[in-house]
């Protein structure tokens, strides 16, 4: 089993850096994108096992991007988890309704974040040997 590849999408450089650093600590392969266009390009270049998606992107609404990915046969089985500062009532349900497989609100808890990520990876692929 190869190392799982996780693509992190966040238009805030500090937040992108934080999550990417954590995931590298967890031993994952990590890619980063700051908008929807770049995200699509990176998915086409290398299919991620998990997509951590910020919902407020400069060039698109993250929910719309999730919907597109989930309705395209080529990308529909990529696990998409919304990692977002949208944390008002209804935001979790809106994310799940758009096709996201999970929802994590910001600020994230760095102590438990890797466990959460691990659980989402478990859902689709056999447990990786890595950690």
């Amino acid at each position, binding site marked *: 089993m190869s190392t799982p590849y996780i693509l992190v999408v966040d238009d805030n450089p500090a937040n992108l850096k*934080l999550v990417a650093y954590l995931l590298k600590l967890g031993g994952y392969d990590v890619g980063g994108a700051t908008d929807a266009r770049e995200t699509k390009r990176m998915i086409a270049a290398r299919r991620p096992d998990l997509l951590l998606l910020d919902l407020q992107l*400069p060039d698109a609404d993250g929910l719309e991007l999730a919907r597109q990915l989930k309705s395209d046969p080529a990308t529909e089985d990529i696990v998409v988890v919304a990692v977002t500062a949208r944390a*008002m009532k209804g935001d979790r349900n809106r994310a799940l309704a758009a096709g996201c497989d999970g929802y994590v609100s910001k600020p994230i808890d760095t102590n438990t974040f890797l466990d959460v990520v691990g659980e989402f990876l478990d859902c689709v692929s056999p447990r990786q040997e890595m950690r």
Partner: protein
Amino acid sequence: MNLHVLLVEDNPGDADLAREWLDESPAAVVDMCVSQTLADATEQLKRSMFDAVLLDLDLPDSRGVDTLRRVRAAAQDVPVVVVSGAARTDLRDELRAEGAAEVLSKEEANSWLFSRCVLYVVERNRAEARHAEIAALLETTPDAILVVGTDKTVRYVNQAAVDLFGVERCALLGETMAFSVKDRTTTEVGVPRRDGERVCEMRVVPMTWKSEPASLASLRDVTEARKATELRRRANELEAENHRMHEINRLKSEFLANMSHELRTPLNAVIGFSQLLHSGKVAPDAPEYREFLGDILSSGRHLLRLINDILDLAKVEAGRMEFHPEELDLRDAIREVVMILRSSETERRVRVRTELSDEVPRVYVDAVRLTQVLYNFLSNALKFAAREGQVIVRSLPEGPDAFRIEVEDDGDGIDPKDLGRLFTEFQQIGAGRSRRRQGTGLGLAFTKRIVEAQGGHVGVRPNPDRGCTFFAVFPRRVESSVLEVL
């Protein structure tokens, strides 16, 4: 005149004589039917319309006044001329009372009298029918009709007028009309009545009444219609108000959701990196250690800026922002802001040029707020200007009482569909990677509010070639009354 007459006479000799008399009449062409019995007469009356009935009272099947009653019952609208043998005065009176139009005795009748009498009865009946039609029209029309003489006294009123004014007809006639008479145009008048004033639409036209000039006023009671209109207007108003409240609520929720998002975003970096460092996952001597501290610091500063902007915005919103207008040189104030920002923007080599009009040298405004507005526009322009591009700052007169500050950039411009939400809180606009998240998304919203609070307005327009121009219009002298409101 063409006459269709029914002669009811059982004596053939008398019948022939009557026909002869009428045929001699120069004034009428008579078409005559004859019935010898009452039964036949009523049958004929049912079948066709006659202009008159000439009736002998003594018939084989009916006698005396009763014959008249039964003919009248069979045809109420047809005038009946009774032709009797010997007509005593008391019989005449009785016959008149029973509705006979005329009574002729066979002895006194002759051709001329007979035909005159029939013609007269028919004409009178026709005139009465016409009068009844016109009266019915006038008395049943729902519009009140009054005829007013040149001396302004009321000469005629119809039933609707009596109903409208709520007084007896005789009380109205001869009364002076209080309305001013205006030809043909519709005016609205109030008609006082015991149960409250009625609102009427009145039209007045000139007419001739009994050979004298007069005016005809027709009034339509529109009280209920006006009430209904007023109710509808009120309902619409309430609905609009309700809609506005919903909209305000929606905007508030949206503002709150945006604020939550904007605060959580830098907090994510602050808490996340702090937690990392605190938990010992990053060694103090690792190169990331200092880098992450820097991230915490800049995110913390961004948070502080956000909080300050939100507080400023809340202050203008609550009308608690203070303005201290003073006389100042507009060109100096602008040059100062330009100098500060020019020195901070060296990386992308954007040139800043000023075009300051001599026509607005001195103004009386709050220097701090003016500077804030210009700072906001100019820092945005520098962010979005092309690399090594150019930004122009202008001051211009706007009529005698106002002036305008413009900041023009040569960046990518703004999508027309985004123009509307530019001055709304937390709406950061910019295509793809060119967007820099240094702003809080509150700058333009705040700018709009402080300019409006001083009696001015802001806006943006696309340039014909590249980029766009933001502008703010201020009164040359910020009025003290504006300040009092605040």
